[in-house]
């Protein structure tokens, strides 16, 4: 326990330089604005800001990205409350009681209570991350190549089987991601794979893929649907953002329950903030004495989902930093960032790069504090920034993507490649093909192949190694269980849908 706190304090000290604090503040502010813009969520926010980290040291780079990641979680709620337009998927629930509060003239209160809930949820999730991560890391440190392989396969299978509406679509995206991830020179055998241009010898960088899919793809979607926000000028007084002690007491338990739900759901692969917010809302509605208030401006209906959403950030980082398993598009991008900074994601991450991981967690903690303060006193500034950026969003994102892809290794080939992935991203969005599994497999493809090779070498070519080692076998059973659950779940959904149609 003391050791954990000492490590965390070490991370805090690394972050306590004026440069790193400024970077976190900048990331938090940018993240809040990006999170509030329609179509741009955490994945897009991270994708757009990664180019700025290319020349930074890992600590500063991760500080910036943690600020952005947490900021997008705070930002989504602003437009939900002000104009009933969620900035990202988890903020959909925020509209349900946030906007009615705004209509009742209590918009300042709604923004204040949601900011405090977000902060407490984030704090809870980070606390769980701080205390759980080292314990899990100690448990998995003795894993060998077969266990690593099965763990990565588990991450990939859960997101492929549970993400989106169609398992087959998710599987298609997973295998496409794999093919993209395998492009380039195979450094073990020396053979080249699908190198149709000399620039592809080193493979396709995941940054190019995510900037294209989340940046260009989203812009084209916004251009097609002519998405525009009609934000008025907020007329709130500063004291309106601060709830009274009585109001805070009323929402304290919903915040706590939301935080717990968000953290647990965040830890589960492929679940994430959206499911957490819906579950937290449903729980509060069920527990409420008068559930008819929900949807008409119940503060609990706002506080619990907001806490759940931000708590899911800390939860989602637990499997990422301890086992190298990302559970969502956002954490898959962070996994890619770890690799970009020369870290080796997986059970050894906390041992080999413990100082950077603790600094990252400290960065998340500091960003959470900055975001609470800024979201309580700077709402008018955010609204004005959103209004200005939103007017020219498409052209600004396209420019940033082009410049960012060039900054990767000063090659214009990457910029062209990004444009192609942008078109692909637009098409996948059009056909509701989930992007999370693709990003995850692009990032994991080479590690997965490498651990598979090492496992077979250990067993002199026998596939039985995956069945004879107890941990590996247990993970295999979990994968099979997930597959069975996915099939049964889909069948139930189909039956419900059919029953609904028949009832109509």
């Amino acid at each position, binding site marked *: 326990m003391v050791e954990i706190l000492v490590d965390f304090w070490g991370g805090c000290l690394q972050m306590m330089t004026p440069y790193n604090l400024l970077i976190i503040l900048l990331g938090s502010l940018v993240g809040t604005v990006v999170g509030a813009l329609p179509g741009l969520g955490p994945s897009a926010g991270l994708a757009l800001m990664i180019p700025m980290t290319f020349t930074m040291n890992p600590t500063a780079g991760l500080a910036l990205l943690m600020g952005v990641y947490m900021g997008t979680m705070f930002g989504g709620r602003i437009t939900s409350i002000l104009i009933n337009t969620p900035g990202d998927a988890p903020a959909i629930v925020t509209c349900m009681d946030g906007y009615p509060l705004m209509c009742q003239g209590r918009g300042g209160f709604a923004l204040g209570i949601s900011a405090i809930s977000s902060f407490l949820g984030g704090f809870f999730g980070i606390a769980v991350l701080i205390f759980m991560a080292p314990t899990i890391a100690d448990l998995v440190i003795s894993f060998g190549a077969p266990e690593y392989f099965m763990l990565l396969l588990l991450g990939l299978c859960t997101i492929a089987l549970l993400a989106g509406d169609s398992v087959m679509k998710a599987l298609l995206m997973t295998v496409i991601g794999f093919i993209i991830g395998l492009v380039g020179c195979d450094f073990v055998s020396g053979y080249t794979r699908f190198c149709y241009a000399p620039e592809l010898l080193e493979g396709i960088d995941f940054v190019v893929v995510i900037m294209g899919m989340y940046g260009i793809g989203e812009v084209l979607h916004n251009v097609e649907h002519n998405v525009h926000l009609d934000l008025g000028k907020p007329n709130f007084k500063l004291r309106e953002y601060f709830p009274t002690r009585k109001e805070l007491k009323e929402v304290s338990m919903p915040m706590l329950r939301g935080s717990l739900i968000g953290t647990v759901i965040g830890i589960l692969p492929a679940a994430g903030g959206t499911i957490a917010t819906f579950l937290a809302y449903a729980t509060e509605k069920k527990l409420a004495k008068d559930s008819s208030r929900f949807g008409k401006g119940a503060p609990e209906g706002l506080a619990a989902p907001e806490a759940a959403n931000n708590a899911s950030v800390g939860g989602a980082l637990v499997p990422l930093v301890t086992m190298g398993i990302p559970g969502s598009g956002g954490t898959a991008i962070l996994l890619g960032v770890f690799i970009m900074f020369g870290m080796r994601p997986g059970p050894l991450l906390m041992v080999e790069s413990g100082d950077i991981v603790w600094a990252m967690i400290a960065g998340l903690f500091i960003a959470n504090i900055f975001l609470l303060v800024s979201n309580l006193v700077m709402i008018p500034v955010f609204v004005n920034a959103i209004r200005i950026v939103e007017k020219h969003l*498409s052209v600004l994102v*396209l*420019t940033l993507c082009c410049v960012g892809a060039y900054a990767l290794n000063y090659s214009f080939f990457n910029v062209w490649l990004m444009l192609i992935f942008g078109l692909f991203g637009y098409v996948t969005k059009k056909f509701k093909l989930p992007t999370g599994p693709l990003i995850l497999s692009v990032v994991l493809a080479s590690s997965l192949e490498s651990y598979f090779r090492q496992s077979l070498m250990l067993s002199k070519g026998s596939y039985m190694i995956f069945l004879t080692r107890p941990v590996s076998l247990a993970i295999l059973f979990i994968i099979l269980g997930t597959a069975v659950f996915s099939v049964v779940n889909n069948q139930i959904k189909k039956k419900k849908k059919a029953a609904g149609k028949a009832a109509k």
Partner: protein
Amino acid sequence: MITLYRAFLVLLALVASLMMPEALGLPKDSQYTIGPGFLPLIMLGATIVCCVILLLLDLKDKTDATVKKESIPKMLLYIMATGLLIFCMEHVGIILSVAVYIFSIIFFVEKHPPLTALKVSLITSVLIYAIFHIWLKVPMTICNFF
């Protein structure tokens, strides 16, 4: 009936089929472990199988996806302008190309006043230069001819 979705799936399967000969030509195994062609072959095969299954599923339950006709010219304009931007970034200079691109899109495509277009274009270009070139030390050419 041909739909955009079905055409996309056929195209994907076709691309995977065209890549298949290369995967088949790579060694599938090396001593005691897999070779460089093992996973590519499986993944390409899986892509084709997934596309076929999705096509069959689509025959039963059609995916409804269309592009808004009135948005097509604007989208094409954006794509072509971005393509031109990338070309000009390489041959004319990054910052100058970015400035002209932003001004043109805001003024000609989005139909905002020229002063707004000029302001946004100048501010963004200066910010990009300051952040990437001065702060992050990424080489950013202003104009290749001067």
